[in-house]
């Protein structure tokens, strides 16, 4: 039978057109706009070459610092979520009291709106009335009480903390699935060879879990590089610009009408993500490799 007749490509057109028009095309033409002086102040658009990118990479401006912040956020959230997610998964993959309850609770923050999570933690971190400081005071750890989101020293760490609170459960669920796919015979064999639990973790679990770890790392990286919501709600880049990341900066330039600079930053991200995306596709479509 003729496959092109049974499965005509026009059935895929709806998805392609919608996705192409509102997702792909803006990304591509955005690259074009990043070489102009587009802004809300003038109607005329001029080609200005690399001026916007020079601005971004110039040491006089703070954009490099925002990029550095984004990378810092990504690095710490990836590490913490992976370590904690794996630890939770290892405990909760075995039989333990109230296992399903723990799993459900830990996963729950991933379905809540980031906006809500942000607002809730804004209250918890409040230096005077917040739950965290009153808790620390009530158990006699007054010296640990901080002006969490207000103090430039602790603000960034607080944001990372909230994000780990929210995201570790999701990573845990992926890890549980990964752990369950490791056949028991490997552990039995290792056991016969006389390994202790640390050794069997190191020589069996970790190598077998490597593909899963790659996927969670990539997912966390994608999220971290694109982070906007949680920073926007918790500090909006403040105090000063200490916690500004790439996408809060894109939004700030956008709302100030500096469209060209905003789209130049987006385009940088677009190019990076397409490269990362290529590797993701390679990983996610592993089934195709064998064909």
């Amino acid at each position: 039978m003729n496959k092109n007749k049974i499965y005509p490509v026009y059935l895929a057109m709806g998805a392609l057109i919608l996705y192409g028009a509102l997702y792909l095309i803006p990304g591509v033409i955005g690259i074009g706009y990043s070489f102009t002086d587009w802004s809300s102040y003038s109607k005329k658009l001029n080609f200005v070459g690399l001026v916007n990118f020079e601005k971004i990479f110039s040491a006089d401006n703070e954009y490099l610092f925002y990029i550095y912040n984004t990378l810092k956020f990504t690095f710490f959230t990836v590490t913490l979520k992976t370590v904690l997610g794996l630890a939770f998964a290892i405990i909760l993959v075995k039989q333990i009291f109230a296992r399903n309850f723990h799993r459900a609770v830990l996963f729950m923050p991933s379905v809540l709106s980031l906006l809500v999570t942000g607002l809730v933690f804004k209250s918890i971190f409040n230096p005077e009335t917040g739950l965290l400081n009153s808790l620390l005071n009530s158990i006699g750890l007054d010296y640990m009480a901080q002006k969490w989101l207000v103090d430039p020293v602790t603000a960034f760490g607080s944001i990372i903390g909230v994000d780990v609170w929210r995201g570790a459960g999701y990573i845990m669920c992926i890890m549980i699935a990964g752990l369950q796919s490791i056949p028991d015979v490997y552990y039995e064999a290792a056991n016969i060879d006389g390994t202790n639990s640390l050794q069997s973790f190191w020589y069996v679990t970790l190598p077998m879990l490597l593909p899963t770890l790659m996927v969670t790392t990539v997912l966390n990286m994608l999220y971290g590089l694109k982070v906007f919501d949680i920073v926007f709600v918790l500090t909006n880049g403040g105090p000063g610009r200490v916690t500004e990341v790439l996408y809060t900066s894109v939004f700030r330039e956008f709302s100030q009408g500096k469209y060209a600079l905003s789209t130049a930053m987006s385009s940088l991200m677009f190019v990076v993500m397409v490269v990362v995306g290529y590797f993701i596709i390679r990983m996610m479509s592993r089934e195709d490799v064998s064909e």
Partner: protein
Amino acid sequence: MKKNRNIFTAILKNLFMASISLVILIPVVMIVINSFKDKRQSSSMGMELPKVWHFENYATVIEKAKLMQSFLNSIEYSVFAVIISVLLAALAAFVLSRNRTKLNRLLYYIIIMGIAMPINFVALMKVMQSLQIINTRIGIILLYAAIQIPFSVFLIYAFVGGLPVELDEASILDGCNPLQLFGLVILPLLKPVVITVFILNFLNTWNEFILPLYYMNDSQSWPITLSVYSFFGRYSSDWHLVCADIVLICIPVVAVYLLGQKYIISGMTAGAVKG
């Protein structure tokens, strides 16, 4: 000796997990408790129970935040965007998975590239202006549908691959045209994955607030997330009302989570682990 150690580690593990779950639950409980307090008692956002239970906070917040309007907006956006995205994604995944020509493979890769790709909000504004859908309800619905397409196609594509092709051949011999084959034979079989995609897309759309932040000026058409955000801005000293507002916006999400937990977790972890 060894048995004692095992019991010890078991207790340690249980205590550890219990305290982690507590860390997750405390903020949630705090919000619920404080939503029933009066203004004075809620200003300290403590964990003690309300002296008097103020159920009327909820009525107040529904009225003050004009919650009905934004609640209906959110329902409208989520439902339409989810239906459009699921239907279009299922059609595309069906064709692209069944007929793997070079071109179709490329199209599939281009679509799922969107899982990684960021949106260029500035250029998107230009595109929406030229399509004349900026600041409109239909615009935001189409936008929400568009951003869900990559992951939806990815999930359904894998599922279609597991359905026997013989079904298609038999249906064609029985005289189905492609659209009938999809609607009458394939779509019913896709039910499990479609439910998963439906729930995930609903949650994403319901929780989203960046797109209206960029593209919706008219507060009449704000979704519930944005109205909570602006309510917080105006009443940031009335934590009892903010808490009630937060509880209301979370109820649909938590209900969907509790009912569809199995589908959500399988969908969100799919593709990550292939045995």
